[in-house]
């Protein structure tokens, strides 16, 4: 690490940070981009058809991956239409508002096992453990994503867009609660690091949460919470069966009805980045993060591979679900959010508290 830093004329911490940034941003964007390809090819596979396989450079199509580049170029060349009676500033800002929070959520996720070299500990997450924000940060940032959609719908000055924005706002309010309560029971179960461990971590620190899943994953220990969180993730990312904000067959294209060109591409991409971030959250909270069952210390490479494998599988689940089940109705979603998910989440919280009390922990 030191020689690498010297090569770049940077101090080792800074070089390490730059490297992590490169890995995280490049990785998330890369996965999101490939996910659009997976979505199309996966859908084609499920629907008994072929999917994109024509775009290619000198006949090299890479199973349709070149289509990604073709689409990117196409989006750049499209006319960028701004609706005449909309709010131009907000209209331009909205895609960024949707994109950035989706990206930021990843900052605290530990995507591999920490290691030490030359007496220095290196943590595989953008923000080192013990930063005081922990898992609260992605939840807070995740809630910001709704502003992107609301601003997009408001500034479009389009009735369909407004309907989409309203749905999305209501959606977010009804699901964040259940989701947050599910996460609180994770914090409870994780508990603070025992006194005497190298770094004392608060219960809500993602590193601590991964640490606490050494024996059993939280998905096994809190199946109810897992179910609630998993369902809420679909609402959070605006994917089928909860894609109300977009709701293609009902409200045309919802909040991005008026969007075109790269603005539209950015909105689309932010949906996929949301999927990646949401999957990463789910992996960290419930599926043991970078842990591999029965392997206490997998090491850097193996742990990153494990994290990636879980992440990609969950991303695939998002695609899988989208092409399998129909869409809920908007009022049914509210019903589900308030009358099923929230009580279930509360029940989970109480159950975990009772279990912990029974074990004499608190």
């Amino acid at each position: 690490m030191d020689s690498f830093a010297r090569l770049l004329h940077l101090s080792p911490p800074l070089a390490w940070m730059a490297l992590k940034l490169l890995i995280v941003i490049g990785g998330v964007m890369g996965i999101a981009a490939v996910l659009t390809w997976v979505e199309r090819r996966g859908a084609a596979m499920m629907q008994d058809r072929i999917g994109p396989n024509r775009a290619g450079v000198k006949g090299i199509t890479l199973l349709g991956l070149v289509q990604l580049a073709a689409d990117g170029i196409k989006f750049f060349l499209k006319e960028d239409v701004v609706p005449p009676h909309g709010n131009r500033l907000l209209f331009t800002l909205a895609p960024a508002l949707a994109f950035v929070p989706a990206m930021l959520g990843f900052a605290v996720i530990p995507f591999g096992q920490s290691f030490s070299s030359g007496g220095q500990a290196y943590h595989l997450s953008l923000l080192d453990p013990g930063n005081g924000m922990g898992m609260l940060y992605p939840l807070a940032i995740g809630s910001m994503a709704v502003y992107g959609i609301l601003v997009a719908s408001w500034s479009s000055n389009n009735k369909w867009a407004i309907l989409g924005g309203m749905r999305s706002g209501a959606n977010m309010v009804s699901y964040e609660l259940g989701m947050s309560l599910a996460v609180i029971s994770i914090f409870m179960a994780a508990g603070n690091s025992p006194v005497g461990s190298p770094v004392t971590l608060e219960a809500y620190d993602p590193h601590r949460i991964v640490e606490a899943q050494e024996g059993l994953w939280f998905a096994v220990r809190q199946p109810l919470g897992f179910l609630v969180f998993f369902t809420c993730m679909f609402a959070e990312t605006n994917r089928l069966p909860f894609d109300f904000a977009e709701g293609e067959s009902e409200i045309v294209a919802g909040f991005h009805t008026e969007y075109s060109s790269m603005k539209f591409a950015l909105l689309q991409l932010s949906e996929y980045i949301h999927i990646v971030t949401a999957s990463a959250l789910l992996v960290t909270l419930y599926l043991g993060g970078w842990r591999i069952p029965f392997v206490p210390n997998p090491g850097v490479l193996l742990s990153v591979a494990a994290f990636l494998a879980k992440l990609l599988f969950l991303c695939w689940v998002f695609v899988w679900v989208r092409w399998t089940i129909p869409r809920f109705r908007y009022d049914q979603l509210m019903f589900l959010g308030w009358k099923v998910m929230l009580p279930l989440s509360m029940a989970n919280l109480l159950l975990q508290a009772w279990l912990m009390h029974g074990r004499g922990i608190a």
Partner: protein
Amino acid sequence: MFVFLEFLVFKTEEMEINLGPQHPSTHGVLRVKLRLDGETVVQCTPIIGYLHRGVEKICENKTWFQGQVWTDRMDYVAAVTNNLGWAEGVEKLFGIQVPRRAHYVRTLLAELNRIASHQLWLATHALDIGAMTVFLYCFRDREAILDIFEAFCGARLTTTAFRIGGLREDVPPGMDRMVRNFLKAFSTGIEEYETLLSENRIWKKRTVGVAKLQAKDAVALGITGPVLRAAGVPYDVRKAFPSAAYAEMDFQIATRPEADTYARYLVRLEEMRQSARIVQQCLDGLPEGPVMAKIPKILKSEVCEVYHSIEAPKGELGYYFVGEKGGANPYRMHVRAPSFVNLQALPKMTEGNLLADVIAAIGTLDVVLGEIDR
């Protein structure tokens, strides 16, 4: 008393919005003017006419033979049944006896077309509700039917399958095998649709109890077809006024008492199964003999009028002809298009419900705008 607090009360107003004519799920160019209170539909007004081509007027200037071409373009997903109605109507007018073999082939093709039409309905209806994969499953299976039509008459969509007096050609060699292959594939295909939808909880949540239309209202509005039968009224023109070879076929009328979107889904699925049964019977019992009656080159009518109706996939499709003395073409032609009549039920089904239910209701009515606007 609390007038000074008025500024605290949020003002709400109803929003008027056009669903269509350019909208992904209005099945063509239907325009529905909606008054929305939030997402609740206060008023729903279907506005039609975007696909008007004046088919009825055009047919007055076409001979009795040529008019059939225009019937293809009415309900363009069920061209064969439209052709059947026209051909039989004209034959009734002139008292032409059609050979039995031609009747069987007509029945076979019309029932295949009913399956194709219902498949297209299921595909788009499921797509509207958000189940995207059903869409392609249905299209995959429908392809085989279109191939059969192509083998029979060279066209896949606008078939003009029949001639006044019978068929232009006998069935081509190999069609028998194609139909049997289709029937085999269809019996597994329909299982797949059912696996994806019938017991799917989201599908049921979106369809059970949605867009109800009770039998009383349905009869009062003149609704026919699966929408009426799903309200528990066992009215089917194939049984009530059998034409073609329907009198010799053994099949049941599918009915359900619930009168909601899910019931209509079940009724149409059952109808597809019954149609497959009829196709099987036509195939097995196909009589030998000529396929064309002896008719003159030019048909000249007397002063007369005739109404003939058949059971199209969407409901009762009626042709009304008026002939004048020595007329080589209809003096007046009118079509009782089932989609047109059924669309009247839309306000009754949707007002007071949510926007998403309007989409479900349009889907469940199975309207084809080519037939509504003509």
